């Protein structure tokens, strides 16, 4: 703001262009210079909003989320049994004598995967690169959700406080950082993104 005011005063004294016009021109130039970044951010926001709109549809819950969470609960129970725990799963519930929990919306790998997909699709790259990015980035995010469920089981078996800490404070930011990290590594590798001679190194 102070920069704008100073410039305006100087231009007025020198009898130059209208200060308001100059400010507008500079703002437009600033926006133009960052057009690609702004376009990425807007497109990302649009795609993420589309996902959250889709996620409130009953059909999403019935045909995508619940079946996916059921598979997650069953898979987590299998893994926990492999680790020597006496657990079973029924529907969205998984647990045993030590701890019992329900895998719900928000504890799924779909939301982070959707965020990753939105970031990849919004980034300027070829369709082939985007497909490669999606196929390489989404499976690890979905797999990481098994790690989340397993760790939450052990945290819950330890104490309620540990469960709350892992459930509410550690896993949500960790997932977002994983999404950001996967996207950054992919974006740095795209030939469109990397400086000449650095692509695919």
């Amino acid at each position, binding site marked *: 703001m102070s920069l704008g005011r100073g410039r305006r005063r100087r231009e007025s004294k020198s009898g130059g262009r209208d200060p308001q016009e100059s400010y507008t021109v500079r703002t437009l130039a600033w926006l133009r*210079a*960052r*057009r*690609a*970044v702004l*376009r*990425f*951010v807007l*497109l990302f926001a649009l795609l*993420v909003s589309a996902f*959250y*709109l889709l996620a*409130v549809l009953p059909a999403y819950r019935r045909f995508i989320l619940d079946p996916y969470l059921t598979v997650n609960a069953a898979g987590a129970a299998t893994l926990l049994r492999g680790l020597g725990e006496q657990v079973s799963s029924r529907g969205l519930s998984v647990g045993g004598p030590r701890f019992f929990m329900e895998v719900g919306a*928000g504890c799924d790998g779909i*939301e*982070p995967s959707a*965020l990753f997909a939105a970031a990849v*699709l*919004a*980034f*300027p*790259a*070829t*369709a082939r690169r985007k497909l490669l990015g999606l196929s390489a980035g989404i499976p690890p995010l979905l797999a990481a959700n098994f790690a989340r469920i397993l760790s939450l089981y052990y945290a819950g078996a330890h104490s309620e406080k540990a469960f*709350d*800490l892992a459930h*509410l*404070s*550690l896993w*949500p*930011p*960790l*997932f*977002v*950082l*994983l*999404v*950001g*990290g996967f996207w*950054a*590594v992919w*974006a*740095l*590798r*795209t030939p*469109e*993104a*990397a*400086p000449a001679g*650095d692509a695919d*190194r």
Partner: protein
Amino acid sequence: MPTAERLPSAGTARRWRLAASLLVRTMVLYAAFLALWPVWQEAYGRGYARAGQWLYHSFGRDGQVRFRRLETGDAFDVDATLGNRRTRQTVELQLSSRYGGYELAALESALILATPIPWRRRLRALPFALLLVHLFMALVLGLVLTSAFSNGDPVAVVQLPGPIKFLLGLATQNLAVMYTLPYVVALFVWGLTVFRRADLEALLGSSLASPTRTSYL
């Protein structure tokens, strides 16, 4: 300490190592900030309640809100009493200064302090980023209160059209009840405050710096 400027010349393995090291350092710092919560809890909760009171004490002509910090030691440590002057009805909302404020600020701080750029730039970016994050959280709190004041119960002071009410509910659900999306905002604030345009050009080449080679959706 590697710098962001060196990233593009690094190979894929080195990029993965840098990303992993940033992730680990951020999570370690974040965990340290979480461990410090008992130290900050009282002051932060008090500040949260005061800021809420200052921003949202009055809501339209009839709505009023009174924020009060609870001494229970619970995560939901701020009580907001929403009242309607006309109907003389009140409802109470339990808010968490930890989940609705401190943790996001902690992640933002951890991200900035873990970024491999000169310390002077990190320390310069930190207050600006924390200000932006807190402005975002104030906005989310405003959405929560607007949603509560438009629910059609005795404290309702605004009647919103159906689609607006639906979008408000959706935004409130994903920004205040679920915890993933606010961290995405924190990530954007980090990018905005830490990276300069030259860093973006160095990291991402010309694709985001100049719009000439775009091939979006």
